[in-house]
């Protein structure tokens, strides 16, 4: 074996090991977090967690029922804001935009995506909370909704672009107008990609904490309507984790586990939706 061959083999082995180790580390990180959450959170997860309100300080047996419902309410409002705007904006970019305007819209969308979530929170605080003079679920939902828009726009646009031109031409050739083609052929064909994008967006936004600190704030009781402060899982995790009570810490872990479970379910669900999707290959 010549020196060159030996060197080549050596480099191969080193690189393989290095890349393998990095991959392993990545996977380990996820499993480490999962493991911690399941271990600590699982211990505190019980029926009381899901149905009880937070107990008075120091007492045990409290739960996060209102936070779970609160997260749900905010996600609902966020979807009502983020999904239509994101969807229709994505449709415009993919189907109707002129070159300059589309470029501008895409660029600003990406910038909006990059705005730190705490800045979003301050923004919502200034625009909604201060005029209303109190924290509210409405403000929290709006902040999350605006955060959803850029991702929804981009995933919708990409899903629509993935629909082959020849399908659109088929519809146009039958006498469909541009909008009818988009609504009746292109969007149904892209629907799986769009739904996946929305599910992943929801999963991401469900865990955002910073904007909620200034908008939805917190509420240890049931919050009704949209004008009252409302509790959410991420904010509860924050509050409990830095508090002094063991019971609180346990509940924070449990909440973390619930949140992560939500994200995992959304991701796996999204993959499931995609894998059952119709491909455009034929024969």
């Amino acid at each position: 074996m010549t020196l060159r061959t030996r060197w080549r083999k050596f480099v191969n082995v080193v690189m393989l090991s290095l890349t393998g180790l990095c991959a392993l580390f990545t996977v380990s990180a996820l499993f480490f977090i999962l493991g911690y959450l399941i271990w600590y959170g699982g211990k505190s997860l019980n029926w009381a967690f899901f149905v009880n309100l937070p107990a008075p300080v120091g007492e045990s047996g409290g739960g996060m029922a209102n936070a779970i419902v609160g997260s749900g309410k905010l996600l609902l409002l966020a979807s009502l804001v983020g999904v239509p705007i994101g969807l229709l904006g994505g449709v415009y970019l993919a189907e109707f935009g002129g070159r300059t305007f589309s470029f501008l819209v895409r660029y600003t969308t990406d910038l909006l995506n990059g705005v730190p979530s705490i800045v979003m929170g301050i923004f919502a605080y200034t625009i909604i909370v201060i005029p209303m003079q109190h924290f509210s679920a409405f403000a929290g939902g709006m902040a999350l909704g605006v955060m959803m828009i850029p991702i929804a726009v981009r995933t919708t646009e990409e899903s629509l672009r993935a629909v082959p031109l020849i399908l659109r031409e088929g519809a146009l050739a039958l006498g469909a107008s541009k909008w009818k083609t988009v609504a009746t052929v292109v969007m149904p064909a892209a629907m799986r990609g769009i739904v996946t994008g929305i599910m992943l967006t929801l999963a991401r936004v469900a865990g955002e904490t910073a904007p909620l600190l200034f908008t939805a704030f917190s509420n240890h009781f049931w919050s009704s309507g949209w004008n009252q402060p409302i509790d959410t899982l991420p904010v509860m995790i924050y509050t409990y984790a830095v508090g002094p009570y063991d019971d609180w810490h346990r509940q924070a872990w449990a909440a973390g586990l619930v949140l992560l479970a939500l994200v995992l379910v959304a991701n796996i669900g999204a993959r499931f939706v995609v894998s059952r999707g119709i491909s455009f290959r034929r024969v």
Partner: protein
Amino acid sequence: MVMKTSEESRPTERAAGTATPWPADIKMRAAGLDFYYGGKQALHSIGLHVPTGRITALIGPSGCGKTTFLRILNRMYETVPQARPEGEVLLDGEDIFSLDVVNLRRRVGMVFQKPNPFPKSIFENIAYGLHINGIGSKSTLAEAVEKSLRRAALWEEVKDQLHKSAYAISGGQQQRLCIARALAVEPEVLLLDEPCSALDPIATAKIEELLFNLKDICTMVIVTHNMQQAARAADYTGFFLMGRLIEFNKTAVIFKTPARKETEDYITGRFG
């Protein structure tokens, strides 16, 4: 009827204001048609008549402009931003560039090179054209779907699977489905852009046969790179080369006694 080549086809009648009656045996006519993609000219002064109730084939080597020309007939070039025709194209005497494009496309249908059924069921594919035109009562739809499938020689093969996905059938069947879909809106003209190029010989033969049977109900213009297909199936043939129409005549004349040397060279395989 003697067909003229592009140089001789400039209309001697002017359209507006003259009472030249539109002959019944001609469905569409192009005259002095130029076509540009941005600054580049793709078609030069095309002039031909599409005879009613006949199959007209357009042949020529790759890139000669035959598909470009076909796509002008139903204004599909409009999906390309910088595409621009100049000249005259008439459908039953009406200028297609001033007709409502949706209306035009209902009267002039198109079948594409690769089968492109929508990701819906077979039934919904065929009913699509009817739906968007507002024809929609359930019983009418079912009848219309059956009629189209019969015309496309596909009914017997799919009558029990109408609600299955259109992708569950073979390529040849999908192409016949696309023909049925185009026929459902009862077009006066059917444009076919190399409809058999993606299919095997048996599927091709089935489609050629059904096209022959469609002559009673619509006029057809078919672009094909397969000369034998043109010779077999078409009544009239036009030979395109480098954006020009070199010769246009009855198929028998083009293939047996072509008037131009370029045509003869192409037919005998000396190039292209």
